[in-house]
């Protein structure tokens, strides 16, 4: 990924690297710099926490239940396919 040499990450850089960090796509060195910044910066720590919360909220959308009607429609489709297939 992008390489920032010689200096510490700024907050503005950190907020752009969160997904790379969470996907473990930073070089080991950048990862260390990322974590060093976080350990000294409450705001960026909060930012990371909020991004994690955002991800969890997106994930909660998948927990919607399939309606009984839909499920039975799809089962009908499955049964018909079973009958049709050799």
């Amino acid at each position, binding site marked *: 990924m992008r390489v920032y040499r010689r200096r510490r990450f700024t907050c503005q850089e950190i907020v752009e690297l969160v997904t790379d960090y969470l996907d473990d796509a930073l070089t080991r060195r950048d990862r260390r710099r990322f974590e060093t910044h976080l350990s000294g910066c409450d705001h960026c720590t909060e930012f990371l926490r909020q991004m994690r919360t955002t991800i969890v909220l997106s994930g909660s959308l998948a927990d919607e239940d399939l309606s009984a009607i839909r499920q039975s429609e*799809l089962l009908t489709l*499955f049964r018909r396919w079973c009958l049709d297939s050799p």
Partner: protein
Amino acid sequence: MQRHGQARVLGQGNDEAALVERLLAGDEEAFVTLIRQHHQVMVRLARSYVPSEAVAEDVVQETWLALLRGLPSFEGRSSVKTWLYAILLNRARTAGLKERRQTPVEDPERAVDQARFDRSGSWSSPPVPWEEEVEDRVRAERLTKSVQIAIDQLPSAQRDVLTLRDVEGMTAADACQILGLRQGHQRVLLHRARSRLRNVLEAEFGENIA
């Protein structure tokens, strides 16, 4: 909420072969498990390409049928899940070709408004903590609605990646394969999408705090 990051998705290797066998043998339980896991997410994904919920449902039903019909010749070169979503996106894109909403890409797009940092790149207007509020269930429910609306408004490339990665909980590798993206590009799109959602949520909280 705990689900995220767990292997809710189809199994790999032996499990996968077993699943195909069970479906071919007409095992309804296997099919129900599959549709419970994926149907709603697929409708959500299709919905962003086609003009209505009804058309999205049709596209997903066709996708299930295409999956079943293709099972006998399934060679396991990709996972069933990857294959399933590839069929879906293909069909949704075809069905929605005329109506496809186009959102202009703003570039460069930043995770956080530049005005919130000082000249040295440090926060001048830092994020306000909202962790405790999210733990409030009622509040979380309302937030879920906001997230849903915000996802619907994302540019389609961002929305596809976020739906597969964060809603469905897929790995980066699977999402890249389905969407035909390189890892780096996938992460850029995902980061923009997540950042937009975070901004929407922050606006919600800001309103509450004010």
